């Protein structure tokens, strides 16, 4: 009888282990990437290390928070090793949408623009930084390709390592869809008028206050109620009319799920950032009209457009703040951004 129980216990354990393994395997959607096994003197591991949102901190400590600040699905990591060369690391970040992958690339437009065969950057006439889909610098290649953001890094940059990194980049983007940039970017005009020109190389697309703070610090708290259901673009505008009197303003545009969330976020922002300006925040007219405030670093302006909020910081005068906020309205009418709900 006791022997029988032991046998049943072991049998159950084996069955449970098999089902758990199968479950894990089915939930781990490892992509069937056709990365070359060998490039030059480097050879890769057979299977990638697969990292999900639960164990991303084990892999990269606090850096993981960056990827969780966008809609992250999972990460696959390959390492290419060679006997007498430092390794090449391939990180493939699978995001939920193309916009999220774009957002990760948008955090830094620096580097040499790389065009892979067939990619739009190869054929486009766009000279703007934000038209790049792959950027290379000092051994690191960063790629946005549909819902994939990728980092391919040679731990030591040599001509052979650079060639290998770019070959890997080409393999990564091969046969992948080319998706458009996030629609929200269209609210950023190249020229705001009065000499204010967009710094295209500083345009950032984000969903989280942590990312916003890394681009333009506002508050350690999430005073604009940003989350994975919101999307935002931010960019500085420089005044190039008078070079001797260089000025910069920062523009931020946030789109919420609906008008109610936008209104709540604006209320929270106002209470936190402009506590000395007591207003009747509950009234619709207050939120709908543009508001301008002189604070320590210049004029701040904001306006609610349905589910969206436009904000501008550090303006030299009220007129500039008003011009920029008004220009936003014009852009919203001209573009496909839905702000009328």
């Amino acid at each position, binding site marked *: 009888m006791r022997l029988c129980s032991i046998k049943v216990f072991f049998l159950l354990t084996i069955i449970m282990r098999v089902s758990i393994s199968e479950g894990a395997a089915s939930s781990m959607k490892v992509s069937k990437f056709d990365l070359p096994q060998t490039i030059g003197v480097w050879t890769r591991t057979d299977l990638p290390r697969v990292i999900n949102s639960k164990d991303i*901190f084990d892999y990269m*400590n*606090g*850096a993981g928070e960056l990827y969780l600040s966008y809609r992250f699905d999972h990460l696959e990591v390959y390492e290419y090793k060679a006997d007498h060369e430092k390794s090449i690391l391939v990180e493939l970040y699978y995001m939920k949408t193309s916009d999220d992958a774009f957002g990760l690339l948008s955090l830094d437009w620096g580097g040499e623009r790389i065009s892979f065969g067939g990619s739009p950057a190869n054929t486009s006439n766009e000279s703007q930084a934000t038209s790049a889909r792959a950027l290379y610098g*000092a051994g*690191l290649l960063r790629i946005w390709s549909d819902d994939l953001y990728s980092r391919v890094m040679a731990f030591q940059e040599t001509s052979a390592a650079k060639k290998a990194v770019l070959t890997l980049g080409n393999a990564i983007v091969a046969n992948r869809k080319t998706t458009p940039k996030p629609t929200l970017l269209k609210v950023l005009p190249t020229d705001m008028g009065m000499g204010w020109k967009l710094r295209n190389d500083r345009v950032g697309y984000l969903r989280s206050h942590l990312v916003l*703070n*890394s681009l333009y610090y506002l508050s350690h708290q999430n*005073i604009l109620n940003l989350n994975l259901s919101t999307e935002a673009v931010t960019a500085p505008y420089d005044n190039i009319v008078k070079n001797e009197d260089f000025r910069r303003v920062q523009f931020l545009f946030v789109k919420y799920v609906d008008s109610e969330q936008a209104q709540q976020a604006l209320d929270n922002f106002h209470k936190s950032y402009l506590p000395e300006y007591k207003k009747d925040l509950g009234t619709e007219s207050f939120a709908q009209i543009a508001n301008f405030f002189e604070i320590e670093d210049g004029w701040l302006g904001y306006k609610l457009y349905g589910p969206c909020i436009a904000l501008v910081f550090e303006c030299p005068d009220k007129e500039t703040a008003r011009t920029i906020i008004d220009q936003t309205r014009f852009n919203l009418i001209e573009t496909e951004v839905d702000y009328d709900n």
Partner: protein
Amino acid sequence: MTIKRRQITRRDFIRGTIGATLGTSMFGVKWALGSEKDDRTSLVAVVRNKNVMNDDLVVDFKLLQQMLDQTMIEVTGAKNSRDAWSTIIKPEDKVGLVSTGHLNPTHDELVSGIKLALMDIGVPKNRIKMAQGGLRKAKDCTALISLPALKAHWLTGIGTVLKNYIMYSGNPSRYHGENSARLGEIWHLPQVKGKTKLVLVDALHPLCDKGPQPDPRYQWAYNGLIAGTDPVAVETVCLRIIEEKRLALRGEPWPLSPPPICIEAADKVYGLGTSRMGEIRIKHFGWEQDLLL
């Protein structure tokens, strides 16, 4: 203790009221609160050698040992390296070396050099432990040597000295975002408090943006060691170097974002040392070019 929680915004930095805001923003526990040190002068040594790494970033171990010796002499004022180590570590100490394990890690050569120096003053090899990780590792030690590598950090501005003990908290993600101001409280944990005899920053190949993930575009050969006994002062000097490098790279102001509020909080709230450059005496030795100080 009930303290009204205030929000920290950009405007606090512009107005210079961040210290006051931090003081009233953090819910502290009594053991974690400190007071500003009476002695408000701290010494930080910066020792550099142009040749300590070659073009392939390979470290010359002998040169690094010489730099380490000089660093200890500068920090302690002792005549030689052995005397210098003896002023901070006793042979009967159980020494924990708290290095950074990955993502711009502390160079192994530096850790090896310190182990050799400690054994040279009589600390047995089996009493020198790698103490990065859980709090138990700190608890088991009588002396800690903090050995972070110099880097900017996208969540906290800088991720070097104060952040180096984050794993002792048992919940590192709790200190991301606004709570990064509270990193100083970890230094007051009973298992950690008072044990740090030296903070020695590996500034051979720092990272001035996008940390902790390595980005070679923002790494450069500074070829330095930065050390002192005041963790806040050492972090403040590290911050200045990072900021100056960012300015040099872009040719225009490029402040760390978010601002590293943990440094001022470590001074004004947790009393761990001074964050004012005017109260820090920097002793520099060696390579002058691009010192950034």
